Each structure stands twice: as C-alpha cells, then as structure tokens.
C-alpha cells in the first residue's frame, strides 16, 4: 500500500506546478455509488427502541413494582452485554456489543418476567437468548427467533418462579423474592372465559398484575407511537396483529360474555399482547421484510395468539405465536414478493 502514492506521482510529473491550487490530490477513494447516506445507523435504531421502552420501565420501577424492577432490568441488560462480550472474546470475533442490540434484548427479556424473579433466572434467560439463539446462529441479523422471547420461553422450564406474578403497587425492594404476595393476572381470568376483576381503566393505566414491563397499555402505546414517529417501525405489523386479535375477539367471544366490545378490549390490553405487537413482533431480524409478507405475518401472529389463548394450556399465547411466526418469516417474504415496476401481473408472462 505504501508504494501506491509514490507510483502515482511518478506516473504524472508535476506538469501544472504553476497553479499549485489545482495540484492533483494525493489520494482518491474509488467506491461504488452512492456516495452519500442517511444518518440512521444500527446503534441509533437500537437506542430509539430503548428510549421507547423507557416510559414503561420508569413507571414500573417508580410506581408499579418498586426499585426491584430497575434492578431486574439492569441485571438482564448487563447479563446480555456480558454474554455477547464473552462469546465474541471466546470465539475471537470482532466485538459487536457497540450496536446495543444486546441491551435491547436484555431489557425486552426483563419486561416479560415477573418483577420478583430471582436474579439467577434472569441470567439463565440472558444466556439462552444471547448465546444459543443469537450468537450461535451468527449474531445480529442471523437469528431466526426473537432472542428475548426465546429466552422467555426457555424460562418456562422453571414453572415455580414463572407462573406467579406479584400484585401491582406492593413495593418490592431489592431483596424481595418469590415470597411476595402474588396476584391473579387478568390473563388467567380471560383464559377461563371470564372478564377479569380489573376495570378497563386499570387495564389501560397498568394497575394490574403482570410481568414487569407489560402491565400498562398506555405506556407501551406511547413507546410505540415514538417508534412510529421516528420511523423505526412501520405500523403494518402491529396493526395487522392487533387488528386480527380485535376482530376475532369481537366476533367470536366465548359463551357467556355479555359485551363483546369489552371482551375485545380486555383481550387487547391484557397479557403481553401490546408489548409483543409493538416491540417483539416488529423485531427487524425475525420479521419479514416485504410489505405483503409483513401483513401475512401480522395476521398470522394474531390468529395464533387468539388460538393459543383459547385452546392452549398456558393462559398466554403471545410469545409462542410470535416465535412460531418468526420461523415462517422467510416463507412469508417469498409469498409477499413485491411486483417490480413495469412487470405484468399475469403469471404466464412473468414465467417467460
């Protein structure tokens, strides 16, 4: 490389020495166009997702569950970062923790856990999410399942700690463990075909039992609005997902439900549906990239969620629904191929 500049100056004697300003530049880069780019980067997109998650996290830690929510989230994020760092060191890969995707995974995983979950459980989930699901498949962009959800589902292996949720507004300090008073989640009631004991207002604001970050519909929608305004996510997936769930719950409520509209709203706001639809199903890596593919994917998530909520043995179905649809993302991309400009619609001519 060091020989190149000298060679260049040899080739071209300074025949235009008199106008020094027009002298040949020492080194020019040759690269493919375009030579300009937008400002968005992977790290900024991840940062935006983290910002969008902040309202729900701050209210969880300061109002719903107490400081333990902060600590669980911090432990989860730090655990994910550490596992990615160690994995990259152990396999001698380029360090990738700077893209902040591990932090997003950590925070999202924490959001799906009960606020009084033991810390070791969090770390087990982190390990599964980062090392098994993400890094062993080749790191960011290569995993086919949402790491946070896969970690969450892996933690179903510990049913004792994962099926009881602390009641909201019972202050959990740092040492609290599973002994905290647990409360029935609205999801459990819905699974039994009954309207939960919380009012719709409580559901919307988040005064209800549930996972650390999923309780407040309002705060999750606020985060989602931020992501849409910043153009980090498109509305296609969340709208198709929530729309499918809404339509199915409205038109096919279980027998004995007096008001299908009320039933639909409970369905939409309970469990991890909003967290899943806004933050998990829209995960770039594991969702389809084509417009129609995203529509199929959103509708598929909605269908499966309602199916699993109605017929599954667990009360909640969002995590399984999204993971199953993740596995179909590439197929949806093939079916949802856009029609290029100027290509005719008929299949016969397209085949030519």
């Amino acid at each position, binding site marked *: 490389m060091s020989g190149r500049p000298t060679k260049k100056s040899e080739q071209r004697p300074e025949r*235009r020495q008199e*106008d*020094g*300003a*027009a*002298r*040949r*530049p*020492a*080194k*020019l*880069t*040759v*690269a*493919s*166009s*375009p*030579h*300009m*780019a*937008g*400002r*968005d*980067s*992977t790290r*900024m*997109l991840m940062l935006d997702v983290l910002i969008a998650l902040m309202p729900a996290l701050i209210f969880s830690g300061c109002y719903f569950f107490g400081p333990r929510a902060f600590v669980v989230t911090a432990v989860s994020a730090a655990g994910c970062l550490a596992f990615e760092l160690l994995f990259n060191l152990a396999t001698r890969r380029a360090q*990738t923790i700077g*893209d902040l995707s591990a932090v997003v995974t950590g925070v999202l995983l924490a959001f799906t856990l009960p606020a009084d979950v033991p810390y070791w459980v969090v770390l087990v989930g982190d390990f599964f999410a980062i090392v098994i699901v993400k890094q062993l498949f080749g*790191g*960011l*962009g*290569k995993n086919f399942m949402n790491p946070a959800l896969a970690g969450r589902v892996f933690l179903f292996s510990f049913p004792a700690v994962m099926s009881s949720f602390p009641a909201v507004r019972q202050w959990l300090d740092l040492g609290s463990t599973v002994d905290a008073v647990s409360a029935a989640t609205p999801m459990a009631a819905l699974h039994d075909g009954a309207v939960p004991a919380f009012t719709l207002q409580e559901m919307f604001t988040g005064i209800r039992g549930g996972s650390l970050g999923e309780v407040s519909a309002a705060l999750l929608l606020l985060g989602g609005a931020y992501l849409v305004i910043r153009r980090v996510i*498109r509305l296609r997936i969340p709208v198709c997902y929530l729309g499918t769930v809404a339509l199915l719950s409205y038109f096919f409520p279980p027998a004995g439900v007096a008001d299908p509209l009320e039933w639909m709203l409970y369905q939409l706001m309970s469990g991890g549906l909003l967290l899943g639809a806004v933050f998990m199903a829209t995960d*770039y*890596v*594991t*969702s*389809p*990239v*084509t*417009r129609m593919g*995203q529509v199929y994917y959103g509708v598929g998530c909605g269908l499966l969620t309602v199916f699993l909520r109605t017929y599954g043995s667990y009360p909640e179905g969002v995590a399984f629904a999204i993971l199953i649809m993740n596995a179909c993302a590439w197929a949806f*991309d093939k079916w949802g*191929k*856009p*029609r*290029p*400009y*100027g*290509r*005719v619609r008929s299949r016969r001519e397209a085949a030519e």
Partner: protein
Amino acid sequence: MLHGFYGGVHPADRKKTTSKVKIAAMERPPARVVLPLCGQDGESGEPLVKAGDKVSLGQLLCPATPRFAAVHASVSGTVAAIEPCLQSWGGKALSIVLENDGKDAPARPAWTPASRRDAPQDLTPGEIVDIVRQAGIAGMGGGAFPAYLKLHSAIGRVDALLLNGAECEPYLTADERLMEERPEAVIGGTRLLMRCLALDRAVIGVEGNKYAAVAALRKQLPLRGGDVEVRTLRARYPQGSEKQLIQKLTGRRVPTGKLPADAGCVVFNVATAAAVYDAVYDAVPLTRRVVTVAGSAVAEPKNLLVPLGTPLEDLIREAGGWCAPPDRVLAGGPMMGAAQFDLSTPVTKGTSAVLGLVAAEIKPANRPEGPCLRCGRCIEACPMGLEPVYLHLYADHGRVRELAGLHIMDCTECGACAYGCPARIRLVHSIRSGKQQLRSLQEKNRGEGGAG
C-alpha cells in the same frame, strides 16, 4: 393530477453553494480535449479525421452510430491522436484527442438555421429529426442516448411529451441554472420537440425547490392555457429517473424491457431541449454543456459552460482548485456518479457535475459495513419494486439463478436502497456484481447453446 412513484428517499439537497451562481464560460479554455467515439458498450464509429488534421469548432468528426450520437469538434485546433482514452465510467474508449489552438474558429454549419419568427411551423418532423441527428444531440441527463433515435422511436406512438427538469441528485444545479437563465431555449426546444411529435401539449417536471427556475419558465408562458405546462414536484430522489418521472407525471409504467414510447411517453432532459433549440435556430451542433463543479473540497463552486471533452482537472482548476484534500472526486451526482481515480477523464454529453467531496461529506456512507438487520428499508426505498436485501444476499453467495428470478436486471442502480441502509451495506456494489455474474452466466449458456 399528480401520481406517486413507489419508494425513494430524501437526501439533503446541498445545492445552495451553486444554485445562485450564474453559468460562466471557462476563463482558461482547456489545452486539449478528449472526445470519445463510443459509450460504455457498443462499437465506436469511423472517425472522419486522422492525426495531424486541422479541425474547426463544430466540425463533424465521427458520424452517428446506432448507440452513440455524432461527435463534433468542441474546440478548433489539430487532431493530436486517435487512441483509447480513460473515460469517467472507469474504462477506455476510442477517442479523438484535439489540441486546442484557442481560436474557436467555427466550421460552416451543415444545415441552414431556421428563422426564429416562423418556426417551428415551417419545419417538418423529419427535418427536425435530421437536424437533431446531425447536431449529435444525446440525452444530457446522464444516459447520453442519441436523441434522434429516441425521437424516431416516439414519432406517432406517444401522446405525452415530458421534459425532465427534476434534477433530483444533491449538489447538481446545472439544469436549474439553465432553466433560470435560458428559459426561452428550454421552452423553444420543447415546442420544437412537440412539433416533431405532432403533439400540442408538453409537461416540464421541475422539483419544487427550484423556485427561480419555475418562475423563469412560467414567465415565458401565458398564465392559463399555455401549450407547455410547468409542473412542480415535491423533492424526492430518484424523481429525475426516466421511469419514475413517467410514473409521477402520467401514472403509467414502462413495461420491462420496453421503451418509454411503448407506454406512450417520451422524456427529454431540459438541457437536451435547449440543445435542440440551439441546433435548429443557430445551426450549432452540441459541443458544450453546463457542468456543476461543487463539493466542499472545491474552492469556488461554479456552474461552468465547458467544451465537451474538457478534462475534469481543468474544471477543478477553473473553480479555484482544491481548498481541502478531496476524498472522492465524482463525475455526476453523489447518488449515481462514478468515483474518479484519474482526473484526466473528459466531460461527456451526459456529465452533469464534477464533485470534489471531503470525507466529512461522504459520511456515513464510508463507514464499515455492519450485519444486515433485515429492517426492510431498502425494499421500501426501491422505486423499481425490487428486494435489494435479497439481491445482496444472493449476489454475495453467487446464487445467480435466484438473482434472475428477483429481476436483478431491472435495477437502475439509483442508490436509494444503500442511502437508507442503517448497516451501511454496499447494496449497489453487490447488485452490480450480481448483474455481472448473471451476464457472464448467460453468455456462457449462449456460447454452449451455439456450440451444441
């Protein structure tokens, strides 16, 4: 009525430095000019002169070929050589090198100029096409496709004549200045094209950020009921691409592999229209064009009227030389222009700009590639409705058959996908390599078919 085209991006336009700078002729004309006789593909024509011949300004040097417009001397002087010379697209092309004697002695026009008062009604379409062919006019938006062939393909088949004044690439102001300073030439050229195509209407599409150009054009036209309509478009890249402009202005799509005339449209650049005007009324062939010289590395950004064949380094010198070390020098705009490694390459009929960009301006396009997030922004940005993410993937893995299935050849390399990619993946580069792989496979197959 405005239609949309799909995709596109909104790059910062960065036109301020030159959009108010008047077009200036070169103070120090080039010592020698290089005039290529063919484009990137195709046979070169038979030169009519040989080394040592004296030529005058505007003298025909090489007649038109089916792929390349006629070449005229852009300065007067002597033919120094006829040899392959480096071109701005990165390869060599057989070129006539002229030594400039600085006299600009004009050649006798090969056709009689039309009178400004009577034309265009006096001219028949055939006469106009003939003048356009003799004047060596080629598409000045970048394609450099011979204009007479375009007219030929369009006569009797089109019902919409569109003039492209979008100039959607950042930095470029050459067309904007031309429309502002010579609106009568743009409109007059448009009327000649209308006459040639037997149409009584034409539409000039201009991006709405060029207020002065729009105002200047509209001043030439009656408030209502004019034969030429100036339509302002919301700035968006790649609006100035032929197919996207057609979609935007008429709502039609050009069928794949067909000409715009097959969709009933024909598009000319505003600079091409002005060249037609000059050729018909002044009987001068196309020997010069307006080039924007800009970028942070250039001391005095300018819009220069330069003889064709002027080496890029002379343009830089004319614009005050470098004020900062350039990282990339581009022939053309930053979205589709070619990076140069040797500044002796000449200005051609399609060169709209020479840009000297410092590293800070290119950022973040020069950041290292990251892993693909599958965010789908490239698909949303693609105006051709392709899937750049998969083209990149398959091209990198050499899976050529899939590339053909994804219509890789439809890609216009506009760069909208790579512009928006948060991982900075060089999508256009991958797609170009994919096209090359597909082409060589097809050639191999054809060769085998021929042998068998």
